[in-house]
């Protein structure tokens, strides 16, 4: 074959492609629609004419015209009928070719050469340039639109005359024919200009291929649903009389849902499960002849029950494994059962009745929605539930699927050997963001149909990534669907029509307060001048400020390690030098809210129960302070004050926290800290810092000397120190810095007084007095606030009560030997 035309001519699909180009799909749809409307309209007129003898006279008075046009109306009706039948036949004809597109059916043969979608693009080529042909084709336009690239942008790109791409080397990657994904991959590989064009619009290769897959999936689904006569579609109708051959389940029905009649199961439609491996395991277990019971263990969320729903759907559609055919899956709702049974006797009798009925019925697949809850309730009644249900679990006449959350599994089930021996455990794996994206792609169609919104592929991907990245404690797929559902009304209220990556990021930013949206001009300015902004609050700690500012910029630029906390810092230095203030400044800058700072006084965690207090205790059932803090505030700054005063066991907990971004709580449940900034403050080595500063006041403190000393003294292990993003040394404050802090604090006081109409004049005399008398060699600037409160504020308050200072007064403080504080108020005017 020499040219692309030869290739098209050689394909078995050629005639249908020609016909397709002559009568486009839209035209065919119009043909069907218009002829149907005409048939109904003309049919009604004829029916009216035929029923003239039975109609009231005032209606038939005008029938003369109809009588006169009778033959013409009938003629028109017959013409429209023939057009309608032709249109339907054409649809079926085209559909029979598109039907081959279905991946699962894999009906293409080598002589087809390409799939219909590829054939349409190739047939539409006006030149030998595949790139232009693809971009101008309908399907190419759809793919590009899903990447957020509209027709005008494509036209601009084509106006740059990118190098042409010949289709002659296009070959199938797998299988006998060239598929659409082969064509798009080929274009991406062959055209550097196109590659650059896509990348410049934030569409990577994976996005381009993903969008292609999405479009093909859409074609497949629409073709499949239109073919109602296919066996899979027909068998969805529930069978009659199936129950007659099996026993009834009176007690079970009281506390359960029949999944064959359940709306939630029906609402799954054709969505493929992203839990195929778990489904396969479940089918193998249920196909056994004895003890065919499965225990699904996974995180809280609907993933476990969704697997069961999918199984029910397969049974209903007659697609389940032979052992499951004709079974009636029934979901026993343990909460209902437990709420209804108030006593041990009732509880045991009901359980026995349910299991006996289910066994006798002969077709029950019993699904227990929360096995741990059932066992915990039995424990409460001091009932030996396991020995009660054991004979049923061991028999070959009843199959049971039990669902259980991971932490409850460890708590209530794992240790019970006899129960475990009756079940085969299936653990639900954590879903990857790719698997979540695949599931979202189909859910998006429903959201789009209901909201007039249009989602780009990258936006869907961002939702999947965002769900696992910013909401790590939730079940990925569930959270992703929630995010998708929540974005729709948000985007509608924001008058958005297209939901792209930036829209998704803005939404997540609104929800979490973590800045991840596009950097605005104002924010850019703030980020670039972060050092000076922080320095206005934190005096004299240039190194600390610079370390923190760098971490903020790294995180904001999205280049931080996603499997670690946003940042983890160890602030070393004497008391009162600005360590806490830096943490506050960081919370205010990063989360735009100083209140996002949560403090843990680590000196409270030094006893034998320190670890239990922090992460909870399995034996007492108490939750830990850190676990609760992180769950309640998953986004923020956690200040670990006086870090050195806790026990080595507690310090060890922080090794995985800083390294992997999570820890396990008392129940072994993972708590993610990936959206937290940790700041540990410590006075360790403060004496050495003083010593070094006194020796060489102008030199920087040697980090290695300080850290070596801390390790030598056994305060922190090297592996812990290495896990911090930065160990920041805070220098003791000099006179100049103390004066600045004094001025800063006095300005804050002046601002407060100004609100009462009082003007405090801040003189250098006042500043140096506060700096000199308020600061302390050991406690740094910390006592300064107390000094201002005791000496300055007190005098102002006394004068106000005495009436010497009233609203509108202006005053300052001057040195005075008479005053015990050395300062005396001087009121300038009244």
């Amino acid at each position, binding site marked *: 074959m020499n040219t692309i035309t030869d290739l098209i001519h050689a394909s078995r699909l050629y005639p249908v492609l020609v016909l397709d180009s002559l009568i486009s799909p839209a035209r065919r749809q119009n043909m069907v629609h218009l002829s149907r409307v005409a048939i109904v309209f003309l049919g009604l007129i004829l029916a009216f004419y035929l029923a003239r003898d039975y109609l009231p006279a005032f209606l038939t008075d005008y029938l003369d015209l109809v009588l006169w046009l009778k033959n013409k109306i009938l003629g028109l009706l017959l013409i429209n009928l023939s057009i309608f039948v032709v249109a339907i036949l054409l649809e079926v004809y085209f559909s029979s070719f598109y039907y081959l597109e279905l991946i699962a059916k894999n009906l293409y043969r080598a002589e087809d050469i390409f799939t219909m979608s590829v054939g349409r693009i190739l047939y539409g080529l006006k030149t030998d340039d595949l790139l232009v042909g693809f971009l101008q084709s309908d399907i190419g336009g759809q793919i590009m639109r899903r990447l957020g690239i509209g027709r005008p942008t494509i036209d601009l790109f084509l106006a740059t005359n990118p190098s042409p791409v010949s289709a002659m080397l296009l070959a199938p990657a797998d299988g006998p024919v060239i598929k659409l994904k082969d064509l798009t991959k080929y274009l991406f590989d062959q055209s550097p200009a196109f590659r650059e064009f896509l990348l410049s619009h934030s569409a990577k290769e994976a996005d381009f291929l993903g969008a292609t897959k999405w479009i093909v999936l859409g074609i497949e689904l629409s073709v499949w649903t239109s073919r109602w006569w296919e066996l899979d579609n027909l068998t969805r109708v529930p069978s009659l009389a*199936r129950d007659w*051959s099996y026993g009834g389940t009176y007690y079970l029905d009281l506390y359960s849902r029949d999944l064959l009649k359940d709306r939630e199961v029906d609402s799954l439609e054709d969505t493929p499960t992203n839990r195929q491996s778990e489904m396969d395991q479940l089918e193998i277990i249920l196909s056994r002849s004895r003890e065919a019971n499965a225990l699904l263990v996974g995180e809280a969320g609907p993933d476990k029950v969704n697997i069961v729903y999918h199984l029910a759907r397969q049974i209903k559609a007659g697609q389940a494994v032979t052992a499951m055919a004709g079974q009636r899956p029934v979901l026993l709702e343990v909460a209902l059962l437990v709420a209804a049974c108030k006593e041990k006797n009732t509880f045991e009798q009901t359980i026995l009745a349910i299991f006996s009925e289910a066994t006798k019925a002969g077709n029950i697949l019993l699904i227990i929605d929360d096995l741990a809850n059932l066992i915990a309730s039995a424990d409460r009644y001091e009932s030996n539930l396991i020995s009660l249900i054991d004979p049923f679990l061991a028999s070959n006449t009843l199959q049971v699927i039990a669902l259980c959350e991971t932490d409850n599994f460890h708590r209530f089930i794992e240790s019970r050997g006899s129960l475990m021996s009756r079940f085969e455990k299936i653990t639900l794996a954590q879903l990857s963001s790719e698997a979540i994206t695949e599931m979202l792609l189909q859910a998006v169609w429903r959201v789009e149909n209901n909201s007039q919104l249009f989602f780009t592929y990258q936006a869907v991907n961002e939702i999947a990534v965002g769900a696992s990245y910013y909401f790590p404690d939730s079940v990925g797929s569930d959270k992703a669907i929630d995010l998708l559902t929540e974005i729709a009304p948000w985007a509608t209220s924001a008058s958005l029509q297209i939901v792209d990556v930036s829209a998704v990021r803005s939404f997540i930013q609104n929800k979490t307060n973590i800045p991840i949206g596009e950097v605005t001009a104002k924010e850019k300015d703030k980020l670039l001048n972060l050092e000076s902004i922080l320095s206005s609050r934190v005096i004299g700690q240039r190194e600390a400020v610079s370390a923190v500012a760098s971490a903020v910029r790294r995180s904001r630029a999205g280049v931080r390690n996603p499997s670690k906390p946003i940042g983890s810092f160890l602030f070393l230095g004497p008391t009162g030098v600005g360590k806490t203030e830096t943490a506050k400044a960081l919370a205010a800058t990063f989360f735009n809210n100083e209140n996002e700072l949560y403090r843990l006084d680590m000196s409270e965690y030094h006893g034998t129960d320190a670890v239990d207090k922090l992460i909870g205790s399995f034996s007492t059932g108490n939750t830990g302070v850190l676990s609760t803090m992180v769950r309640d505030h998953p986004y923020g700054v956690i200040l670990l004050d006086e870090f050195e005063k806790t026990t080595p066991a507690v310090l060890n907990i922080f090794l995985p926290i800083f390294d992997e971004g999570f820890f396990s709580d008392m129940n072994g449940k993972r708590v993610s800290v990936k959206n937290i900034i940790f700041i540990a403050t410590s006075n360790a080595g403060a004496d050495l810092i003083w010593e070094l500063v006194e020796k060489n006041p102008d030199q920087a403190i040697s980090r290695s000397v300080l850290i070596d000393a801390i390790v030598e003294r056994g305060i922190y292990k090297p592996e812990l120190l290495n896990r911090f993003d930065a160990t920041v040394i805070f220098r003791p404050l000099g006179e100049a810095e103390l004066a600045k802090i004094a001025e800063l604090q006095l300005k804050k006081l002046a601002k407060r007084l100004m609100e009462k109409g009082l003007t405090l004049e801040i003189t250098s005399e006042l500043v140096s007095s506060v700096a000199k008398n308020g600061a302390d060699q050991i406690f740094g600037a910390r006592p300064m606030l107390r000094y201002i409160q005791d000496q300055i504020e007190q005098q102002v308050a006394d004068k106000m009560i005495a009436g010497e200072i009233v609203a509108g007064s202006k005053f300052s403080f001057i040195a005075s030997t008479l005053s015990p504080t050395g300062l005396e108020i001087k009121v300038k005017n009244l």
Partner: protein
Amino acid sequence: MGIITILVDYLLWHYSKAVMSLLVIYRNFCLFLSNFFSLSLLFRTWLSPWRRLDEGYPKNFTDIESVLSVFVLNLLMRVVGFIMRTAVITIGLLSLLILTLFLPLALVIWLLLPLIIIFLFCLGIGLLFV
């Protein structure tokens, strides 16, 4: 490529693949009806008790009265089951029969459809200009 070739290709499809598809659709509908009326299951359990409502016989067979009452009850349940199942099986088989009778008609209509379309169109044109 002319219209003639396209027409030939269409007619080839209409009289080969589409006819085969029609037979597959017939099979699909047969399976659907069989599944809808649960024919296979009802045949297998034709004489089983209605909804498995049967009672166990007393261990003491000397208590003739109890044994007889259980026997009568179980027999009654089987009779009820038999009658109900027979009714559904009959309707199901009748539906299959109607479907099977409809098949040759559908095939004839399908085979003649191109001619029927032309006939309807020409008749329509004719009536329009009468």
